[in-house]
């Protein structure tokens, strides 16, 4: 390129295509904020998507509207990046920030000592500039942005004001609560109060990782009487169990056993109803006899999960899954927000298999219904019939259920289904909104989360016909505002309402399964 400050003077610059090690680096980062205010913290987890050589993940294929930029020429795309930040609120004007990043800069020929030196220098300089910017925050562009986005900043400020507790009082909760007999909770489930669940799950390894970008667990629920088998760390993270019961989201085909705990939610598909029935019977017996003696084995093939590493070891009775949180701080902080399970089962659902005895559909409970012990699942699934029938129900294709503390309309599900990337059902839960678009409160700080399942094509048609023949109204509703008339019809079934004690609980639910989307 040439340009001349004068007719007789030229500055000539040449740019050269640089070899791999001298190219700019780029990456696409998906970051998610996590409400940990019950521990006086906010966390941010970021993961990169796509790599230099590999295509973007299925996640992006599923959402073609999401822009995923091509790698520019002459740029090296960093293959994988995992980063996390934890902001601990000491008081109103003092924060402790921890940032951890795992990244492969693809500089194998560059001495590590040099990379470390530069990294340290950049980190120090970065925080220095952040401090300077924060000191001059008022009147800056950032202040204007804050005013422009009340849907984000006001919400955060409101949650901080509502939930943040003095630093000395921010202690981990529910570590050693005494056992207590369960009692019947809303929706017919068993409500355990202050019970650390020693229960267990066995996950079939071959059913793990059906979707690589998702933390999937197809579950065979195993009841193993093994008092010597201590509680699994992941079970510890589940915390106090508040409610256990079966849940029927759209039909028996998506029946699931739900364990709602103080620090998370587990949805276990009824892919093996007899085992689930046994568990429910066990749980029912517990009501009179005390807590169940169940142990847990997680088995899985390793799959990646943001902020988690999963490892499996074969112990002869399934594969034991160990979950390692990469971030030390997050391990403590995120213990309340461990991602949990989503069932996937395969098989063929024949209309004849559906009957009134094991198919349930019920309109959602009205918002604002009573919440028991923090989180209550206001849902009907008639567990008694499910237990007594003992039928084995096959499921047609996978069904996804995600819980999100997201105030946006459930466009992702509709986009997923209408784009043809969800050959089967999909679903999510969204925090319910009022007519003004604001989160629908269930009194006080409680938030209402509606669980929505969506389906298209064969599954919906088949289920609808079968239900109609059985004289059952499944209550499917078409999604409103679908973008294209060419898209296959997508139907939604709003099936249950979760009332969370606080926005933090709702966020925990979001974290629980939001990685699916």
């Amino acid at each position, binding site marked *: 390129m040439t340009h001349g400050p004068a007719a007789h003077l030229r500055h000539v610059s040449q740019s050269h295509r640089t070899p791999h090690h001298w190219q700019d680096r780029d990456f696409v980062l998906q970051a998610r904020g996590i409400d940990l205010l019950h521990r006086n913290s906010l966390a941010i987890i970021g993961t990169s998507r796509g790599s230099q050589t590999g295509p973007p993940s299925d996640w992006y294929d599923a959402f073609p509207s999401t822009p995923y930029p091509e790698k520019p020429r002459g740029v090296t795309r960093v293959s994988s990046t995992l980063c996390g930040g934890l902001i601990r609120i000491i008081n109103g004007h003092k924060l402790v920030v921890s940032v951890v990043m*795992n990244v492969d800069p693809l500089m194998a020929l560059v001495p590590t000592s040099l990379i470390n030196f530069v990294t340290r220098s950049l980190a120090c300089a970065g925080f220095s500039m952040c401090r300077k910017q924060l000191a001059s925050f008022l009147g800056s562009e950032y202040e204007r942005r804050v005013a422009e986005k009340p849907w984000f900043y006001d919400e955060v400020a409101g949650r901080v004001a509502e939930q943040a507790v003095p630093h000395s009082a921010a202690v981990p909760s529910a570590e050693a609560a005494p056992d207590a007999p369960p009692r019947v909770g809303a929706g017919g489930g068993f409500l355990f109060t202050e019970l650390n669940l020693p229960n267990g799950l066995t996950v079939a390894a071959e059913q793990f990782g059906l979707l690589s970008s998702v933390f999937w667990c197809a579950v065979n629920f195993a009841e193993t009487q093994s008092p010597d088998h201590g509680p699994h760390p992941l079970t510890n993270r589940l915390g106090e169990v508040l409610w256990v019961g079966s849940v029927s989201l759209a039909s028996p085909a998506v029946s699931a056993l739900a364990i709602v705990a103080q620090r998370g939610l587990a949805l276990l598909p009824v892919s093996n109803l007899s085992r689930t029935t046994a568990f429910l019977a066990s749980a029912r017996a517990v009501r009179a006899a005390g807590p169940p003696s169940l142990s847990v084995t997680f088995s899985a093939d390793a799959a990646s999960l943001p902020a988690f590493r999963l490892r499996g070891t074969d112990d002869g009775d399934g594969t034991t899954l160990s979950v390692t949180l990469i971030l030390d701080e997050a391990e403590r902080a995120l213990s309340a927000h461990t991602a949990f399970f989503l069932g996937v089962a395969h098989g063929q659902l024949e209309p004849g298999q559906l009957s009134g005895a094991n198919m349930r559909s019920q309109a959602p409970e009205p918002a604002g219904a009573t919440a028991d012990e923090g989180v209550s699942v206001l849902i009907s699934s008639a567990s008694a019939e499910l237990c007594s029938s003992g039928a084995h129900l096959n499921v047609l294709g996978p069904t996804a259920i995600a819980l999100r503390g997201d105030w946006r309309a459930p466009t992702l599900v509709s986009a997923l289904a209408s784009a043809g990337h969800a050959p089967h059902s999909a679903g999510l839960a969204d925090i319910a909104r009022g007519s003004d678009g604001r989160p629908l409160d269930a009194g006080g700080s409680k938030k209402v989360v509606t669980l929505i399942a969506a389906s298209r094509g064969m599954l919906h048609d088949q289920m609808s016909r079968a239900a109609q023949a059985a004289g059952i109204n499944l209550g499917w509703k078409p999604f409103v505002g679908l973008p294209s008339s060419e898209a296959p019809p997508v139907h939604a079934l709003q099936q249950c309402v979760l009332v969370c004690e606080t926005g933090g609980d709702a966020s925990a639910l979001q974290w629980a399964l939001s990685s699916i989307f």
Partner: protein
Amino acid sequence: MHSIKVHAEVSAPVGHLLALVNEVDLLGSLLRFVKLEARPLAQLSRFSQLAYFRLGLFWPFEVRFTAP
């Protein structure tokens, strides 16, 4: 794989710090000592977003231009 861990104390309201993190397109002007291109791609949910980052390599790795 390189791991970086940084701790720092910051004297500011949490909302201000979040603004620095959340406003991705301003990061380039904030971190002026690096050639950083950052732009948001999609707001996936209220608390989740997708962003693109391109980091120009720093000296002595930066792209060289010659001006004879």
